[in-house]
């Protein structure tokens, strides 16, 4: 299973290039013109990333996360979420690397095969870095009114957080007792 993942990228690359070459397409020149477009869109997302990463970095450094974690404990118990995973839930939408570090910390502290460890794993595996995606995707365009993008995306995140505890309870109560 682990090995399979390493095949995906090289196989897809080969398949695209061979199929196109057989069809008589000038693969190299076409690749270059596409890559040039990729370069300019890469540069075009920089301003949005500077704004977002600076804000997230300052937010993390301010210790706001600890205060919010404490404040959200009653809400978490209402949603049947273990309070140990609150920092992960708070950081997951705003910082990919920050969430990864907290996730690693949770599974080494509480163990990956415990209730807390499993909820953290499901949470980490089933959600994305919402703010980063929004900043990068709209950053590449002239759009400045994102309308209901964020409310809809955050609804998905919230459902994901709640469901991670629900599914872990569901699957491990059925199979392990």
């Amino acid at each position, binding site marked *: *299973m682990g090995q399979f*993942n390493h095949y*995906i*990228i090289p196989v897809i690359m080969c398949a*695209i*290039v061979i199929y196109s070459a057989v069809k008589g*397409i000038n*693969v190299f020149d*076409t690749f*270059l013109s*596409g*890559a*040039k*477009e*990729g*370069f300019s869109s*890469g540069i075009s*997302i*920089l301003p949005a990333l500077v*704004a*977002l*990463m*600076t*804000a*997230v*970095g*300052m*937010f993390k*450094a*301010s*210790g706001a996360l600890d*205060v919010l974690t404490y404040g959200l404990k009653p809400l978490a118990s209402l949603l049947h979420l273990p309070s140990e995973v609150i920092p992960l839930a708070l950081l997951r939408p705003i910082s990919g690397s920050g969430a990864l570090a907290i996730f690693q910390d949770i*599974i080494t502290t509480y163990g*990956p095969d415990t209730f807390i460890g*499993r909820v953290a*794993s*499901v949470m*980490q*595996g*089933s*959600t*994305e870095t919402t*703010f980063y*995606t929004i900043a990068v*995707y709209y950053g*590449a*365009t002239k*759009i400045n*009114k*994102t*309308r209901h*993008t*964020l409310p*809809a*995306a955050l609804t*998905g*995140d919230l*459902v*994901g957080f709640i*469901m991670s505890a629900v599914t872990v309870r569901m699957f491990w109560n059925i199979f392990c007792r």
Partner: protein
Amino acid sequence: MMTWILTGMFLLSLIFGVMNGRIEQVSTAAISECGKAVELVISLLGTMCLWSGLMKVADKAGLTAKLSKLFSPVMKVLFKGMNSCSPAAKAISMNVAANLLGLGNAATPLGIAAMKELEKESPLSTSATDNMIMFVVLNTASLQLIPTTTALLRLKAGSIAPMEILPAVWLTSAAAVISALFMAKLLGRIGGKRHGAV
């Protein structure tokens, strides 16, 4: 929306920084984090060029059109008035395929290409269209079938069954994606009426 988030986060950082006596760290972060954004973009430029190039090749050979035909039943439900042969539909299909396979680094440049195509459909607007919102929301949810990074970290932390979370991850992701897309449709319909009135 992004204006308020940026303002809010700066303000919260200042308030909590003062309250927690961590204003020095906040100041350091303000200076150093913007440099990290540049580092991130530079490290992403390689994959951006690679996958945009491969996408162009696949597009010319007619591969993306085939993929977009495959996804068209789902796309018709999610995106209003989307023609499965349009450049936007092709780019969206490539992005979704990359997401499903867990190729995050490839999905981003393909997604940006899709956004640029969607923008061409309403070139004068600075307000996001319903289709753009649908597409971004789809990308803020996790479509990855096998969360390899998470499984790898579980293995490193000594898990005896790092992949046993898969069914729970699938069910959770599905619930999250469906509710996010449903909200996008619902809010789009409500907002659409208001837009129509103005």
